[in-house]
């Protein structure tokens, strides 16, 4: 199922809040981030969202797993974050069709900065594929076709 227009992005986003935040607040922020990323990918030209998923781990032990499978903005989450969260580590995978990896990276950066960066919080984004983002996937039968078939 790897066609020429398949793209994969993996990143880690670290957010540090100056003051402790409630679990509900951070959870809502994460849902908004995932939703905006999925919508952004759709608007940027993704023809099919495969899976956009993340795991968020907080400094005080809570965790959240979120997932989006289309660009409607709908996000499914499970797990929970606790009150008093100061620091979160988010690992994100975006797997989709129809747009290149650099565009995904831009969408992720914009979503995270717009939603999570402020005077009260600092965001750092790490590209986890930086050394090997050219996935040499050997599903030969589909590799030379553009219609996914």
């Amino acid at each position: 199922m790897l066609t020429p227009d398949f793209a994969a992005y993996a990143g880690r986003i670290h957010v540090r809040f100056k003051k402790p935040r409630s679990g509900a607040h951070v959870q809502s922020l994460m849902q908004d981030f995932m939703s905006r990323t999925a919508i952004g990918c759709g608007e940027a030209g993704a023809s099919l969202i495969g899976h956009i998923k993340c795991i968020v781990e907080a400094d005080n032990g809570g965790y959240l797993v979120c997932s989006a499978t289309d660009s409607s903005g709908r996000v499914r989450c499970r797990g929970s974050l606790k009150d008093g969260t100061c620091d979160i580590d988010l690992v994100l995978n975006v797997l989709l069709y129809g747009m290149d990896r650099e565009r995904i990276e831009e969408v992720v950066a914009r979503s995270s900065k717009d939603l999570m960066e402020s005077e009260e919080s600092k965001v750092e984004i790490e590209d986890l594929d930086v050394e090997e983002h050219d996935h040499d996937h050997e599903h030969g039968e589909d590799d030379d076709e553009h219609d996914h078939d």
Partner: protein
Amino acid sequence: MELLIVAGFLGSGKTTMILSTIGSLIERTKKKVVVIVNDFGKIGIDGRIMDKYGLKVQELSSGCICCTLGPDFIQTLKQVAENFKPDIVVVEPTGIADPESIINSLGYYQGPPVSRTRIFVIVDAVRFSVLVKALERPLKAQIKAADVIIINKIDEVDETTVRDIKKTLTDLHATGTIIATSATDGTNMDKVVDLLVSRC
């Protein structure tokens, strides 16, 4: 040792399905189960999730075990079989994997014998019609390889949609047992466990 491959397209609910059934599988069979998870990203997310749920997980990241990571998978399977001596190894490949290629790679496996291999394929009821149009051939390959096809997320679609999916699966020459479920609300999960447990 039995091998249980839980395949299905990206986002179809493979991890949720494993998490929703593995406890009952262990409870009912009293057998030792190890999970091998293959994620596309450099840092696996699914393995971390399973770890949060207390499962013993072996991760393979940064590629797909049906192709580039095939040798790594064989090596990992051998290590798992020798070190943990499990009765059942559950394998969750990436959502773009062709289960048949995984089966073929087992030809190079030289560890403790595998008595039986079964393939459970999860299909996403919400996106099925879109995926069939966009990715018919690879999706067909997953479906044809399946011993059991699980139509997941039926809580999000109506009965007509489920009926249409079943018809399409038949048209695509699916030969496996078809079962409609929702891993989220638990619909028919007992039937999935029954199938997992059967002849374990």
